[in-house]
């Protein structure tokens, strides 16, 4: 069973921001935001044709500035948020905004793909998520599985919960939380928990991970010194509500049970430089993707701490007698935690990696030099998980 070769796509600019189009569940589609100080920045819409292994791209202009973070609405395909840097009067300011893609970008690309490259359309600004008193925005988080009405932005040491109204053209701050403490504290990253009725948020600042209750906007847990160095990214296990993955500059990926914050449940140390991104697969949470500035992408199979540590237990009962022996053979040698595969297609630091929202066996990664690589989970593993 030979695995398909990775598909590589090159952007003209350097890029850090990558997201799957969350609301899109049919087509495999990723959004990439570029970073350029000299030219107009772009948002590339990458469509992947799984059957033919072909990439289709569409480019939208994002003239406000270089994009540091991008987030797609879970409800509306056309709506997205970006965090971008704006330079004015030799000052660099980080802002956040909600945008809408022009409605005909898709049709345009189909008719004349060349034209779209030459005359890209521009994003339509819906509203700014800016509050000058709250400093520079680091990232914007959509309410997972929500109706696209609530976002959280992390700006310096504040977490702001916004309500989007009137089809997202107006944003009002409904509540805020502030990180108090010595020195200049700054959120680096965050994640909105899909559990507890979307009532929790986890943030990272310096070496600590904090959990927040969104109803009261108060801290509910804190993992001090979660990593030896800076914490770069977080992700919630989509199926186990207390499980959280984090990664950081100590080259490690750690898995936490937030009910016991003293010790990580598991630690991976496979990368040889800082780990910038960690992502659980949306459906099979044993698959974990990590991206690092050692130019590598690593797919790990963390069976022991997944929601299906012994494979599909439910399915066993449905199996006919004849297949029982086969099933037993497999249960005798359960999968162990292991690195599934290391992807070396990148030549520069990989800052972002994302699973596709449409195909759970497909993921994209983005390195600083603008190279986007689309890969699949090896077939052998895929069938082991499925069967």
């Amino acid at each position, binding site marked *: 069973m030979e695995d398909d070769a990775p598909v*590589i*796509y*090159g*952007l*003209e*600019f*350097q890029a850090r921001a990558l997201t799957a189009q969350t609301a899109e569940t049919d087509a495999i589609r990723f959004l990439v935001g570029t970073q350029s*100080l000299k030219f107009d920045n772009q948002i590339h819409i990458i469509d992947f044709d799984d059957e033919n292994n072909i990439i289709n791209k569409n480019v939208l202009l994002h003239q406000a500035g270089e994009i540091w973070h991008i987030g797609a609405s879970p409800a509306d395909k056309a709506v997205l948020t970006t965090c971008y*840097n704006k*330079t004015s009067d*030799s*000052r*660099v300011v980080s802002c956040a905004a909600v945008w809408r893609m022009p409605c005909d970008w898709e049709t345009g690309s189909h008719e004349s793909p060349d034209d779209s490259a030459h005359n890209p359309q521009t994003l339509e600004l819906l509203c700014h998520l800016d509050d000058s008193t709250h400093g520079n925005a680091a990232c914007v988080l959509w309410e997972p599985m929500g109706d696209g009405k609530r976002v959280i932005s992390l700006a310096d040491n504040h977490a702001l919960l916004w309500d989007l109204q009137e089809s997202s053209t107006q944003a009002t701050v409904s509540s805020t939380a502030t990180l108090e403490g010595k020195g200049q504290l700054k959120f680096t990253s965050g994640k909105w928990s899909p559990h507890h009725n979307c009532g929790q948020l986890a943030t990272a600042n310096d070496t600590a991970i904090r959990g927040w209750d969104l109803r009261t906007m108060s801290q509910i847990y804190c993992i001090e*010194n979660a*990593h*030896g*160095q800076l914490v770069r990214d977080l992700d919630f296990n989509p199926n186990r509500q207390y499980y959280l993955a984090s990664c950081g500059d*100590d*080259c490690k990926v750690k898995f936490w049970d937030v009910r016991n914050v003293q010790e990580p449940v598991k630690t991976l140390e496979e*990368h*040889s*430089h*800082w780990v910038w991104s960690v992502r659980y697969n949306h459906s099979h949470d044993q698959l974990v993707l990590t991206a690092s*500035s*050692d*130019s590598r992408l690593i797919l790990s199979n963390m069976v022991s701490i997944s929601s299906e540590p012994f494979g599909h237990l439910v399915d066993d009962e449905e199996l006919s007698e004849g297949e029982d022996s086969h099933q037993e053979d497999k249960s005798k040698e359960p999968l162990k935690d292991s690195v599934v595969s290391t992807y*070396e297609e990148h*030549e*520069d*630091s990989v800052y972002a990696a994302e699973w596709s929202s449409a195909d759970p066996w497909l993921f994209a990664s983005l390195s*600083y*030099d*603008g*190279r986007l690589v689309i890969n699949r989970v090896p077939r052998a593993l895929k069938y082991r998980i499925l069967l």
Partner: protein
Amino acid sequence: MEGEVDGLVPEDPGRRRRVHGMLKLYYGLNNEGKDPEQSESLDPCDINGPHFDPEVYLNKLRRERSLAELMDEETCMVKQIRSLDSDMQTLVYENYNKFISATDTIRKMKNDFKKMEDEMDCLSANMAAITDFSARISGTLQDQHAQITKLSGVHTLLRKLQFLFELPARLNKCLELQAYAQAVSSHRRARCVLQQYSHLPSFKGIQDDCHAIMDKLAQELRQKFRDGGSSAKDLSECVELLLQLDEPAEELCDKFLSHARSRLESDLQSLEAEIRPYSSTSSVKDASARRQSTAAAGSPSDTSPKMSSLPSPNTDILEFIDRGCNEFVSSLCLVITSYQELFINHAQTGELASKNIPQMANGKLHAFVDDLAVRYFSIVERRIQEEKGVGDNSLLVRALDRFHRRLQAVAKLLPGSAVPNQGTEIVIRAATERVKQYLSALQSFYMDSLTDVRQALATPRLSVGASVTGGGTHLGGPVSSRDAPTSLPELLSSLSASILNQIKSVLASVHLFTAKDITFSNKPYFKGEFCSQGVRESLVVSFIRFVCHSSRQFCESGGDKGGSTPPALLLLLSRLCLDYETSTISYILTLTDEQFLVQHHSPVTPVTTLCAEAREAAQKLLNHYVKVQGLIISQMLRKSVETRDWVNTIEPRNVRAVMKRVVEDTTSIDVQVGLLYEEGVRKAHSSDSSKRTFSVYSSSRQQARYAASYTPRYCNNLILYIVLLINVCILFTCSAPMDTNLLSNIHKLFSERIDIFSSVEFNKVSVMTGIIKISLKTFLECVRLRTFGRYGLQQIQVDCHYLQMYLWRFVSDENLVHFLLDEIVGSSAHRCLDPAPMEQSVIEVICERG
């Protein structure tokens, strides 16, 4: 006639015999017995035969022979007759004298016999007279003799009767005098008689009296037996008497044993009393001991848990075991011997043997000994367990030896007993326990010496790090290099030497267990398993494992919390582990094997495994060291990049101070590592390494654009390679300024990927390369997160050039530094709002001035 001729020819013997035979014939002395010639001589023609008939012979001759022959025959016959005649004459002459003398002798004898006959007659007359007298005397004495015989019989009977009548009184007297043995033997003598004549009233009375007295005696004996105040010898005597009195043996056995038990138990209790105050109320005792000792020793702090330093409140173990042996074991032996004497050996000969008493008695004895031995062992074991201190092993070994030796006596006395084996097991347990204690002592010694090293490193005089933090001097080199050599290598050598010494002394102590003069050392356990499993595996190998393991723990615990272990210690430990791998482990194990003559019956950990472990530990430590040092420098660089407003910075006039710090720190790390590790190999330097100019971004916009438009098209790798190769050719031939981006891309394509936090080799250059890699990569990542103004970029250019000038010398491949610095400058140019690079000459001037 032929026969005659033949007969003449033979010599004397034949002839004489024939003559002799003929004489015999003549005198009729012929014995009809066995004459072989008789059958032949039946022939009447045989002239020499007895049945010779001359007529027949003559007729025969006349018939058969011719005249001439007859004539010859006749002459021959005449001749023979003549010779026979002469023979006869000779014989007559020869024997004549003999006949004469024989006749004389016979005549003389005749005279002598006549005389003798007279004397004989006289003698017989006398004898008849004597017989007569004697008959008369015996006749007169007959009556008196019968009377005397009767009288003597009566006398004996009377004596016996008297003994019987006196018996009660005598027994009483014996009882009074406590001469029990005599009483019993007297009674035994009388018993049968009394029994026999008990139908007579008088004897019955005596018997009853005797019985009463004997009962009393038995009572008294039993009393004495029960009281137990007497010595073992008395006791055994007692038992012997009681046995003779037909007491039931089983009961006696029980009594004897229970009595012995009470005495042995008192021994045991006194032994136990010696431990108890220490073990149960040790704190109280300690306190009091301390109170006493404070007066004497002065310092209350020296009452450490170790026995060695504690003024022991107890007798020491040797004394204790001695007491145990002398009191308990020896009295146990005594009991066993006397018991065996009484109930087993005695019974086997006597009438008791039939009742299976020896077996019964033996069983009881075994149960008894086992029971007591268990208690004794438990006490001894408790005492041994208190022996925690590892100070003086010889005392313990001697104590155990004595313990073991004394039990051999029991083994000899009681061949089937399990006691000696249990004793051996106790010794074995004590030995393994001791080995464990030594292991933990070694471990704590190791940890203590690490703490010492840590302290030594922390004192500023010795610390390399301290000289750097205080170092305002240029490069910090002189200060550290002067102080450091006295510290690290010396610390290392003293540490490893002290550990080795400790191991050796421990081995020597443990070796006592297998000394030749120790009785238990030739047990199979001490010959085999103790050496291989006990000493080699659970002591030496475990310790080495512990060293490796604790080293690894330094990496794990120190990693997250950031430098809880001083980096110098990591470096030192790594070197220690490496030394262990190269030589020390095999040395220690060889030493152990030699000392203990380990015979590897069971599989043991091979040296290679341990070496691999040590090497792994050394590798981990060194990697961790690189990481920690790298992070320290990274931290400085990161802070310097993050906290500055790069957009609104002023034109660079100097190299930033933090870069000087970085170089200083790197230099001092270089010195530090150089103290413990060899230089290592590096790639050849180009002659003008420090002078190398950045081709950086000198750059027209077109070129940047040109490069940027090509970079993304990696998908068509082949085309890109070709384009790049063409570019390279053009650039090299024209020596035109080259775009960094392009350069770095070429570099990436044609060089191997750089692993930042990767394993390092055991040499200085590799370590330094690792540290510098980590630092510069951090610098790069930080730069990419910032936005720069024109002067910001220029400042980075200056800083990078400065780093370039100093860092190349530390690494194995200077291209690595060049590449990373190029990346930094390139990235900052990318992140620059107004990329106007500084002139190379200006940069050089600034750097050289700084």
